[in-house]
C-alpha cells in the first residue's frame, strides 16, 4: 500500500499526508506490517535490482512527483479505500506505485471522469494515466500506451437474466445497455445495429453514465438490462448485490489494458515500459494479481501502442 512505498523509496516529502504516514510508520512499523500481511506486499517492497540501473538511466524522474489521472470508480482496480477514504486502492494503484517505486518518483492522484482521462493528460494536468483504460488505436491518437493486461469483459444483468443476454451479440437487440461515456464497449454495441435490423429486431439502446456506480444503479432501478464491462468489476457488483444482480457470461475483447503517457514524452514512455518489464520479471505483477483476486492469465508483457 502507499505507505510502504514511501518507506522503501525514501521519496519526496511534498505530500503532507504521506509524510505524516511515514512518521507514523517509523514508530510503529511492526503494527503496520501486521496489517499488511494479508495483502502479499512483500514482493513489492523489494524493488527489482534492475530498478537501480533504470534510476541511473532516467535520473529526470527520480525524486519527482508525478500526477496519475484515474477514474476511481472501479473497485479492485482503482477506488477509494472504504476503510480510509483518504487513500486509493486497487491493482492499478499498486502497479503504478511499483513503477513509481522502481523509477524513484512519488505518485499523486487526480480523480476525473472516464472520458476526461486522456484530455487531462493532454492538457498537462496529469503526467500518466493508469486507470484500467483499454489501449485502442483510436485512443492512441491522444496518448501513447504501454500495455500490461489482457481484457476480459463480463455481462452484468438483473438476477435471472430476464432478457437472456449472452454478450455483445444480437441477444442485445431489444435490450438497453448501461455504459460509461467513452468506454470501448459503446461502439461495439452500436455496431450491432446492422445485425439487429437484418434480424428484424429493434436496435440495442445505450444509456451513458459517468461511472460504474451509476451504471450499476441503472440495472438495479430497472432502467437498463445490462452493463458490459471488465469481468472483475462485474463480479464485484454481483458480490455487492447477490440478490439482485447476475453475471451472464464472459466476453473476450481484442484489446489490452494500457498505461497512457503524453505523446511527446518519449523518455517517460521508455522508462515506464522498462520499469514495467522489470516488475513483471520480478514476479511483482503476478503477486498483485493474486492480492486483488484477479486471474493470473490477465498478465501481458509490455508492448507499445502508438499512432502517428
Amino acid at each position, binding site marked *: 500500500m502507499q505507505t510502504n512505498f514511501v518507506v522503501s523509496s525514501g521519496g519526496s516529502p511534498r505530500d503532507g499526508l504521506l509524510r505524516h504516514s511515514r512518521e507514523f510508520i517509523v514508530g510503529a512499523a511492526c503494527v503496520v506490517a501486521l496489517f499488511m500481511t494479508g495483502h502479499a506486499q512483500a514482493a513489492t517492497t523489494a524493488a527489482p535490482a534492475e530498478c537501480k540501473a533504470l534510476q541511473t538511466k532516467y535520473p529526470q524522474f527520480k525524486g519527482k512527483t508525478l500526477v496519475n489521472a484515474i477514474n476511481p*470508480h472501479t473497485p479492485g482496480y482503482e477506488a477509494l479505500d472504504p476503510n480510509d477514504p483518504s487513500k486509493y486502492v486497487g491493482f492499478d494503484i499498486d502497479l503504478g506505485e511499483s513503477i513509481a517505486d522502481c523509477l524513484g518518483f512519488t505518485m499523486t492522484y487526480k480523480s476525473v471522469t472516464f472520458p476526461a482521462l486522456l484530455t487531462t493528460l493532454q492538457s498537462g494536468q496529469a503526467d500518466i494515466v493508469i486507470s484500467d483504460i483499454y489501449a485502442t488505436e483510436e485512443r492512441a491518437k491522444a496518448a501513447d500506451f504501454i500495455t500490461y493486461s489482457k481484457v476480459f469483459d463480463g455481462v452484468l444483468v438483473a438476477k435471472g437474466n430476464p432478457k437472456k443476454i449472452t454478450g455483445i451479440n444480437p441477444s442485445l437487440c431489444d435490450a438497453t445497455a448501461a455504459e460509461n461515456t467513452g468506454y470501448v464497449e459503446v461502439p461495439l454495441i452500436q455496431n450491432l445495429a446492422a445485425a439487429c435490423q437484418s434480424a428484424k429486431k429493434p436496435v440495442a439502446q445505450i444509456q451513458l453514465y459517468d461511472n*460504474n456506480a451509476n451504471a450499476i444503479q441503472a440495472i438495479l432501478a430497472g432502467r437498463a438490462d445490462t452493463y458490459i464491462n471488465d469481468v472483475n468489476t462485474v463480479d464485484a457488483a454481483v458480490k455487492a448485490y447477490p440478490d439482485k444482480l447476475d453475471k451472464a457470461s464472459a466476453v473476450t475483447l481484442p484489446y489490452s489494458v494500457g498505461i497512457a503517457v503524453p505523446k511527446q514524452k518519449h523518455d517517460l514512455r521508455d522508462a515506464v515500459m522498462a520499469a514495467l518489464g522489470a516488475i513483471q520479471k520480478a514476479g511483482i505483477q503476478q503477486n498483485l494479481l493474486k492480492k486483488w483476486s484477479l486471474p493470473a492469465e490477465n498478465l501481458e508483457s509490455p508492448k507499445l501502442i502508438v499512432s502517428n
Partner: protein
Amino acid sequence: MELFLHYLTMPYLLHGIVFSIEVTALGLAGGLILGLVLASMQLSKFGPLAAIARAYTIIFRGTPLILQLVFAYDALPHLGLKLSAIAAAGLALAANEAPFIAEILRAGVLGVERGQLLAGQALGMTPTVLLCRVIAPQAIRTMVPALGNEAVSALKNSSLASVIAVDELTLRSTQLASSTFDFFSIFFASGLMYLVLTAAIAIIQLIAEAALDLDRKFSERFAALLPWCAKRDAEGEAAAPTSTPASTASLASREAASEAASSAVERSNAGRASRQQDLAKQSASVTVTGLVKRYGKQTVLDGFDLTIREGEVVALLGPSGSGKSTLLRCINHLEGWDKGEVRVGGRRLGVRVDGRPMTQGDIANERASVGVGMVFQHFNLFSHLTACENIAGPLRWVHGVPAAEAERRARELLERVGLAHRADALPRHLSGGQQQRVAIARAIAPNPRVLLLDEPTSALDPELVGEVLEVIRRLAIEERLTMIISTHQLRFADQVADRVVFMSGGVVVEDGPAHDVLTHPSHPLTARFLNVMGADSRFEMAT
C-alpha cells in the same frame, strides 16, 4: 440509518465541504469583482465598452458551466496558463457568475429613483459621492435577496467542479459510492451537508436584510432576529400610533399660527413700490442671455433672455411645455445648452478657466461653489436617509462641514420649516408636504445665492399645498432669498413674487411686476392663460 449517520460524520466527506466552500468563495468573490466591472461597463456612456460587456454576458451566460469548467481546466494549459484544479474551478465559476451578478448590480443601480440622482447632482455631488452616498446604499439593500440566491446557486454549482478533479463533496461522494456500493446512504448524507450549507447562506441573507432594514433602529435590527426580542418589537409597534395624534395636533396648531402670520407679511401695494425701487439698485444675480436649448429637433428654449437681481423673487408662469423646467435646469446646469450663456453671481457656467469643456466632476464642483439650490416637484429626498441626514449629509459630503456642525444646521433648518419633531423620520414616513419642506431645508442648507423651485406644490394633495407655500413665502419675505419659482399657483405668485415672467414657446412673452401682470396682462397669450387658470379659486380670492 446507521450507514447514513456513518457517512454523515465521516471526516473524509466533511473535509470535502472545505473544498466546496473554497470553490464557492472563489467563484462568488471573483464573480463580484468581475460583475462590478461588467456592470460599470454596461452602465458607462461609452458605447464600445457596453458592447464588449454585452458580448461577454451573452457568451458566459449562454454556455453551460460544465463546459466553462472543462475549458478553464483542460484548454487554458494549451494557452500556457496551467491553473490548479481549485483555481480553474474558481475561475470558471467566477466567469460564469459575473454576468448574473452584473445584472443584479445593474438592476440595483437602475432601481434607485432618477429624481434622487438629479437632487444629488443639484446639491453639487460629484459622480463618486453620488455613487457612494446615494446609489450604493440603496442599491445594496435591494440586491441582498438576489445575491443570496446567487450564493446558493454558486454553492450548488460548485459540485460541477467534480468533473475537473476538484476533490470536493460531490466528487468524494461519487467515489465513495463506487468503492462501497452504499449509493443511497452516501448521497443522502452529502445531500444533507449541502442543505446545511445552503441554510447557512439563507441565515446570512436574513441577517443582512435585517441589518439593512431602515425601518428598524440599528440596535434592534440584529436583536429582532431572536424570537423573544421580535415579540417585544411587535408590542412596541402596536403602541407607536398613540403618539402620532399628539404630534399632528402640534403641527396643526403651528400651521394655524403661521397662516395668521402670513397675512401680516403679504406685500402691500405701498410696500411693492418701494421694494421695486430697492431691487432696481441691486446687482444681477442670474443673467440668462440668448439661451437656446433643443431636444433633438424640438426647440425648447429659443433665444431666452432673463436677468434676476439679488433678493428678487420671480414667478415663472406658462403653459406646460413652455420651457419653465428646462430653464431652471439650465440655470443649475443639470442640462447643457446649445447656444447662449448663463451667469450666476457674475460667473459664466459651463466653461473652465482654460476654455476646455467641463467634466461631470467639474460641473458638480461648479454647482457647489456658485450656490444654486434646487427644489423639485417630486421632492426627491434620499429615501434611505432620515430628514435630518437628508440635510446634514450633503453639507458634509459636498461642503466638508464637520459632522456636529452639519447636524446642528440641519436641526435648526428643520425647526424653521416646522419639522423639528420629525428629524429622525424617513422620507417615506412623511407626508408630501412635509417631504417638500425637508427638501426646501436641504436646498437652502448651504446658503445658496439663488434658489430654484420647480413647481414645488404640483405633486401635493390640495390640503398640503398651504404648508409648503408658507415656508417659501417666509424665505422670500423674511430672508430675502433670491428665488425663481415655476408655479401654477397664481395667488401665491401674487403674494410672494416681485416679478412674473410669462413664458411660451421657449421665449419670454410678458415680463413685469407680479401684481400688474397678474391683474392687467398686456399680451393676449398671458391674458388667455390667466383666464384659464383664473378658474382656480385661490386666484379669485386674491383678486
